């Protein structure tokens, strides 16, 4: 293992190199570009043996990755924001076809107005697309998820594409010291891609077919089960990962000082580091604050959320997302999980960081203050905006 000073994009590219994809197809978009630039350099210098396809659009990027996956090759692509939206047709196609492609998405605001900075509306709008969705907090986790993503996506009980989300700029372009495993370690962790869901000369197949009303629900149910099985495979992957690399992750969520917490903030992605610091500060003032970080949004960690929040007095969701005319989508999912489990507590929704808007420690502290009052509301933080 070597220590390197890497940005989130570069760390993810290192993880992908170690995963040995056979076909990479990508189209450039800020702030994703560095990951595909690094990968093309690795192909050039021979440290990565892959076919690098310079496609003419994101739609083709994912369509090409599907073709590769459909013949049993390990495929990778990366995108962001408008690019992710441009390939949406292929997203549902890849999940319906059960092609375990891995895609990195650099979370970025969506137009209009144009904005290249980070929020999570791009990927959260696509929670229903049938992809596994993870949200990394830092560059080390990004690299580790790049490796684990293939293990999880390609597992025969899962066979589902994987979208690894990194916050645009805040994570993709921020440098940290990262442990980069050796190729031998990576190979020991990640088996070769084996699947029966492929075009095969020994057993010719027709794939990507139509299924009418009599069969459609069965296919869709199996697709749903594939995603649900990710819950156990994530744990399997992380246990195996810990054995080889010595770093143990915590499943679909990460609890930070939630055990005895009265007030818990639920969030995801790179903002979690700041929330953790605020929680520590409040604990010093004897305020029982906690953080629940959602590492995955699909499959949705219902049980983990219920377990973490059921003892709290109040909670709030902090999300870089809004479903216009409704609430933040993470909030809707969190409150649905609580409702299903019969857990009642006041939960508010804080919409933050749209278009890369800065979030301060003071603002997060203020949210904890408001939680004490037990209100339930949806707030656009920092502009005095509450829904009427």
């Amino acid at each position: 293992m070597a220590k390197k000073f890497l940005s989130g994009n570069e760390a993810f590219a290192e993880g992908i190199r170690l995963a040995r994809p056979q076909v990479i197809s990508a189209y450039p978009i800020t702030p994703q570009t560095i990951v595909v630039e690094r990968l093309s350099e690795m192909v050039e210098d021979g440290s990565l043996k892959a076919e690098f396809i310079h496609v003419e659009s994101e739609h083709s990027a994912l369509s090409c990755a599907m073709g590769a996956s459909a013949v049993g090759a390990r495929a990778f692509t990366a995108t962001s924001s408008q690019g992710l939206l441009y390939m949406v047709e292929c997203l549902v196609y890849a999940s319906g076809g059960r092609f375990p492609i891995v895609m990195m998405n650099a979370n970025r605001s969506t137009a209009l107005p144009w904005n290249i900075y980070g929020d999570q509306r791009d990927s959260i709008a696509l929670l229903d697309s049938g992809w596994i969705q993870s949200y990394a907090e830092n560059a080390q986790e990004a690299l580790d998820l790049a490796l684990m993503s293939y293990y999880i996506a390609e597992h025969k009980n899962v066979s589902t594409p994987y979208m690894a989300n990194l916050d645009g700029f805040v994570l993709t372009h921020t440098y940290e010291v990262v442990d980069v495993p050796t190729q031998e370690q990576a190979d020991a962790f990640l088996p070769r891609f084996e699947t029966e869901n492929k075009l095969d000369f020994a057993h010719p197949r027709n794939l990507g077919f139509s299924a009418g009303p009599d069969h459609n629900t069965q296919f869709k149910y199996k697709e749903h089960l594939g995603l649900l099985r990710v819950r156990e495979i994530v744990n399997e992957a992380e246990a195996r990962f810990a054995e080889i690399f010595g770093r143990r992750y915590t499943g679909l969520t990460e609890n930070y000082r939630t055990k005895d917490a009265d007030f818990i903030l639920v969030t995801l992605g790179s903002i979690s580091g700041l929330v953790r610091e605020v929680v520590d500060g409040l604990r010093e003032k004897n305020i029982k604050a906690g953080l629940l970080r959602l590492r995955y949004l699909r499959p949705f960690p219902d049980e983990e959320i219920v377990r973490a929040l059921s003892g709290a007095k109040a909670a709030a969701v902090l999300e870089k997302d809004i479903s216009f005319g409704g609430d933040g989508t993470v909030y809707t999912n969190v409150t649905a999980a609580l409702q299903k489990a019969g857990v009642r507590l006041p939960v508010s929704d804080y919409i933050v960081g749209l278009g890369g808007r800065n979030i301060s420690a003071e603002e997060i502290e203020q949210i904890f203050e408001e939680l004490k009052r037990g209100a339930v509301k949806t707030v656009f933080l920092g502009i005095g905006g509450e829904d009427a």
Partner: protein
Amino acid sequence: MSVTAKTLCEDEFFYGHKACAGCGGSLAVRVALKVLGERAVAVLPAGCMSAVGFNFPQLCFGNNAIISTFAGTASMLTGIEAGLRAQGITDFQAVGFAGDGGTADIGLQALSGAIDRNDDILYICYDNEAYMNTGIQKSSLTPFGAKTTTTPVGKNIRGNLRPKKNMFEIVAAHGIPYAATASIGYLNDFLRKVEKASKIKGTKYIHIIAPCPTGWGTATDMTVEIAKEVVDCGLWYLAEYENGVYTLNYEPKQFTDPAEYLKKQGRFKHLTEEDIQTITASRDAKWEQIYKTFQIN
């Protein structure tokens, strides 16, 4: 010696499908696969041939085949070719069969990208001159004057007002290693071109006219005849593009009357004398250019 209708293999790779009686497109797919054989990996976008051939559990391809997204024929072919090559497999032919809409409209960008990269794929456009699968709507390969469900014939507008895009020359302008036109009315010419294309490295494109009795308003036993006649009257031509050179493969001694060809088809029934003169004049202008710039076989 190249394969002909007489020496074509007996194996069937596309059968048991639900294509309309007299479908020209299904004939093109069927015979092309007979030339390419069991190592063909076929990609078909949304369209007639995927709609009639891939209805689970009735799957009609004997070789490996997959439906792509509508716009994604070429890009999926690219992925298949790269994915197999990356696994050390080289004895196969990635072949696409897309309709006129899937090629000249929604799939044009991906096709252009594949040609630009010179991916080792064969792309066959079966051109039935409208979106037939969805019920005969105009595409950019619908010819001037044709009645479709989105170019109706009324008092103000009489059918499609725009000429057919020239996909063959658009593709050739990329500097593609091999491009050709064909017609299911001249099957041996098509078979020869498929076989030839399969032996060329890089991107290959064949554009085959494939009449659709349902959309053209012709009898189901007339398909092949109509496909011959469109070549004989000069409204379509059989040609190749290779090494930067256009070659005409077949020169009708004397054109048959385009009016005869047009009047046989329901979609052209409304055409006036003036319309037919417009069509004939544009045919003549095209042939003038062919004689100037094409080599004649």
